[in-house]
């Protein structure tokens, strides 16, 4: 079965420090991986997807099929990055569902 694991429930860093939010997945085929973010009192929204290979708000994520990982990274964290981050997986082949990880709450301290 498809599964997404985010090992850290909470992550706290200081402003300007690098941050890495871990995501591992379990799926034997060709996955589509996403990071969604939920800022305080806001709705869940897409941050980035691996297929577009883009950097959004300074965040990047590389799909590593060998390690089945899709870690989210930012070299210099900002206070406004504080939010709940969810890694999510979908796949080609007719399924319509996104499988989410449990989420990591990132706090960036001043």
């Amino acid at each position, binding site marked *: 079965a498809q599964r997404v694991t985010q090992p850290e429930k909470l992550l706290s860093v200081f402003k300007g420090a690098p941050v890495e939010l871990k995501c591992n997945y379990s799926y034997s085929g060709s996955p*589509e991986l996403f990071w969604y973010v939920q800022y305080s009192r806001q*709705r*869940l929204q897409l941050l980035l997807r691996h297929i577009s290979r883009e950097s959004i708000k300074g965040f990047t994520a590389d799909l590593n099929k060998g390690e089945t990982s899709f870690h989210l990274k930012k070299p210099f964290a900002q206070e406004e990055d504080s939010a709940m981050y*969810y890694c999510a997986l979908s796949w080609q082949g007719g399924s319509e*569902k*996104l499988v989410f990880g449990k*989420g990591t709450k990132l706090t960036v301290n001043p």
Partner: protein
Amino acid sequence: EPEVTQTPSHQVTQMGQEVILRCVPISNHLYFYWYRQILGQKVEFLVSFYNNEISEKSEIFDDQFSVERPDGSNFTLKIRSTKLEDSAMYFCASSDLGQNTGELFFGEGSRLTVL
């Protein structure tokens, strides 16, 4: 910027009562979804809807659940006889291309509390 809207934001109901959660997806989107998140747990897929029918549903989406698009704008989730374990945040989402390639746009959620 167009947004998915959900009503009510919070509903409290007695066990066994029927509940209808309403959603207005983004107007030109074709794919509609319901997800739920029990407090402290992960966001879980319930059902997807395309071309006026259910395209996929999870094992959570049993006979107590139904979805409907009664007109051109609303997308509703009905729970016929609520149970305590139905207490959760329910998220509606819509997409123009489907979630494999497109972005899901989520509503702010409807919090359901079953007493």
